[in-house]
């Protein structure tokens, strides 16, 4: 059972991602499906902003390398058997899936923990960039990286 990491400009089929990972020693797959949200509340002002669509771009070869590193780190930290990560690029309409992370494990606890860790780290280290387009403008999203200089 091999892991997979992919970037695609096509719509992502969540079930196809999740069901590529069913090792015989496993009993649970936890899947995070992240998608384009129409309404976002500003944490500071409480104001609600409406997004029209998103555009993602990536430094593709490095993004794939970083995704593979995360999968390998997750497998050394958590008791999980297989990991699939697929990230969408290009223009995404509201409600379309931007990222799917599926983790199969013998027991669900490790699958939950690894999946949550993977999405946190993906948002911090994988060179993918999100532009939010509103009715009256657009903005590149600010991410979570800490090691910038």
């Amino acid at each position, binding site marked *: 059972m091999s892991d997979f990491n992919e970037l695609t400009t096509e719509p992502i089929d969540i079930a196809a991602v999740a069901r590529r990972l069913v090792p015989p020693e496993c009993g649970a797959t936890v899947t995070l499906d992240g998608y384009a949200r129409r309404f976002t509340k500003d944490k500071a002002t409480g104001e609600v902003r409406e997004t029209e669509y998103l555009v993602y771009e990536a*430094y593709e070869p490095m993004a794939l390398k970083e995704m593979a590193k995360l999968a390998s780190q997750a497998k050394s930290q958590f008791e999980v058997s297989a990991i699939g990560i697929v990230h969408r690029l290009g223009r995404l309409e509201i409600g379309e899936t931007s990222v799917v992370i599926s983790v199969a494990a013998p027991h669900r606890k490790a699958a939950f923990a690894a999946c949550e860790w993977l999405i946190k780290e*993906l948002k911090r280290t994988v060179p*993918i960039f999100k532009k939010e387009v509103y009715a009256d403008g657009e903005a*590149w999203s*600010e991410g*979570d990286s800490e090691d910038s*200089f």
Partner: protein
Amino acid sequence: MMVQVLFFGAVADAAGIREVEVEVAAGVTAGELVESLKAKHPGLAGQKLLIAVGQEYVAASTPLEPGCEVAIFTTVSGG
């Protein structure tokens, strides 16, 4: 020596370019290259920048090799 510089996301918009070949002195560091790019592309000033060389994150103090691929971007925002 020549290095290849790639810009992504907000940094590409701020610099107004996505890719450029740059002549740098031998032994120049990643951080020094970023400073010289900030001088040339004022839009980059004040941005938090990450830098990767050969598709790996590097510290500002890392010396560049001839012909290497340098990528510059702000905090990533996938997911």
